């Protein structure tokens, strides 16, 4: 019996030490040595200040910027310290109501009631921090951003097209655009 107790305690201590201390420190060392930028969270620095992470979406609602997807995080949208989705069921009437309201707001902000609505611009992402939108969602906003900045829409469109990320190997994932990357490029324009 006592040998069983010893086995439980000793194995738990030793194996926890191996898996919970040695292994993480090894990965920490290797990650910081080989991929320091990613290991620190793919941070974006401009003029010495941290402006965010390339992987984490930000709240954009100014007409001068491209907008990302609706975010369900609390207490504010795109709260990068508390990820969350809406968890609304597809059959929940609240979802249809929210989407209809976002559609109306989008159409009003763009003054374009004829163009079809990009679905990802009116449905919330899973994390509330999705950094991407579809290509169609970016093109939908080109004229509005160009007007707000007083620049040629074709230049803005070209900027968007430069930032389209293609699927890995040609088929892993979707064609998409990182909203923060385009907005950074706009500010540098």
């Amino acid at each position, binding site marked *: 019996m006592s040998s069983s107790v010893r086995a439980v305690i000793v194995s738990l201590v030793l194996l926890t030490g191996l898996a919970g201390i040695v292994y993480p420190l090894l990965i920490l060392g290797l990650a910081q040595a*080989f991929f320091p930028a990613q290991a620190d969270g793919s941070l974006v620095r401009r003029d010495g200040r941290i402006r965010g992470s390339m992987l984490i979406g930000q709240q954009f609602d100014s007409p001068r910027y491209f907008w990302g997807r609706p975010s369900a995080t609390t207490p504010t949208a795109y709260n990068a310290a508390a990820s969350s989705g809406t968890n609304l069921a597809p059959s*929940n009437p609240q979802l249809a109501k929210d989407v209809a309201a976002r559609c109306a707001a989008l159409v009003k902000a763009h003054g374009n009631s004829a163009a079809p609505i990009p679905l990802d611009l009116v449905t919330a992402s899973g994390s509330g921090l999705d950094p991407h939108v579809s290509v169609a969602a970016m093109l939908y906003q080109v004229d509005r951003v160009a007007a707000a900045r007083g620049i040629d829409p074709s230049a803005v469109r070209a900027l968007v097209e430069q930032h389209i990320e293609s699927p890995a190997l040609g088929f892993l994932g979707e064609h998409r655009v990182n909203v923060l990357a385009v907005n950074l490029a706009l500010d540098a324009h």
Partner: protein
Amino acid sequence: MSWTSVAEYLLFVAVLTAMVRPLGSYLAKVFAYEATFLDRAVVPVERVIVRLVGPAAERPMKWREYFFAFVSFGIAGAAFVFFILKLQEVLPFYGLLGKDVLSTPMTDDLALNTAISFATTTTWQAYGGETTMSYFSQIVALASQNFLAGAAGLAIGIAFIRGISIDGGGVLGNFWRDVIRALLWVLLPLSIPGALILVWQGVPMNLHAYTAATTLQGAPELIAQGPVAALEFIKNLGTNGGGFFNVNGAHPFENPTALSNFVEMLAIVMLPAALCYTFGTMTRQPSHGWLLYWVMTLLFTLGLAGVHWAEAAGNPALVRAVAPHTFAAGEGAWTGNTEGKEVRFGTIGTTLAVVATSNGATGSTAAMPDSLSPLGGGVAFFNMLLGEVTYGGLGTGLISMILAALLAVFIGALMIGRGPTYLGNQIGVGEMKFITIYMLIAGFVILPLTALAVMSAAGPAGLTTNGGPHGLTSIAFAYTSSFANNGQSFAGLSTNSAFYNYTTAVAMLAGRFLLTLPALALAGRFAEQRRRAITSGSLPTDGGLFAVFLIAMILLVAGLNFLPLLCLGPVTEHLMLWF
């Protein structure tokens, strides 16, 4: 379906199939104590650990002793996690983030639920990681249990295979040696390159406090991150699934790209799938191992097709709500049921994740399960109700599949008037009792707990987001996920209450230990038997006919148990949404 979706699914199955033989034969070598290429590096470590663990790690164990060691290791792990969590405020790294950031109170019921959850590979989470856990808790308590509980599951799977393959004597191996070997030869060596691939793709690995930034619009932003990669790979490889962040695999820091998603899903299924080959090797009946693999793969593929179809169909309620406006379609647009999904995975990567995680006893979904279409979420639900036979939890998935095969053998052999045997093991009355008990436990745990929750006041109180048939699905899904040691949830159900924390913990314990009891007892009986020669008189168990019969048996058992529940939940919601 576009060619790209078929390509991603095909590539996944092709890569997995290519890994099954090398990985499976490696596992067979490791647990037969044969030489492997890692011996020079890890044998010295093994020697030291075995010596310190003492005489218990040297003696051969019959099933009772093996089971006792497995349970005591799990309980000790749970106790360890419980105390770390309760003490996290005085342990290192708590002050780095502080009470303002870690705002979820660590109540007794939450700590107990989480401790049992991680020690049983369920990794159900009633909390949001970035607002609850210090780095010390995340890594030393939770990530390490991902390794240890995963290794214990693998050990149980190997012991079960030994029971079937051994010719008399009753010895299933030594639990402590098996756990040590599972860690040193399998989980740790695979996790080092695995974690680094994820860091390369963008998963953070640092010990800094959350990063303060200023957004382009000038607002302050606090970016949660930390030692994510050390947890991220093993949470999938060990079929655990508890995320570093609240939204788990949907978080850009846990799963930054479509490629990382592909790698993480592969990590979930590769060891359970390879165990089929290990089974074929250890029993010296490779064709039987392959049969189980292809049955699993067929069911897996059907799941992919079902979820893809359901999610690509979109949500008719939204189309009605925005009329006369229409949604964009065609080149560059994303269509389908996009709520709760991430753009970088799209419908395809999300489908892959839904099917792999719900089958693989791993809760790390790449989307919010609550917002899946009724039938897409229903497939995930059904996968867990099937007992996670494709490819299942590490070690436990193969056991579920073999138990189903034994039932199929018994019924099939009686139908044609043969004596039921599987790989030379006779299935008599005593064996059949254990098989039946194993099959019935799921219904006896999930359904009463669901009924209790629905009838009590505390159960429906959790339905803060969704109601109706979806609400029923959420509750049943919670207990199914806990029992299946899966851990994914319809998170619209608020489960961080004493009621849910205790009742789901009961389901987790039952799914881990109550289910292993008849399985190991059965393995013990087989291990006592002398194996008989497989003759032309036995029911052939490696052909296409048996495969079809086996699939029918899997569907039949789950159907008899759970069809009414599925009709009241996902099917009713689907009909209400579409008609």
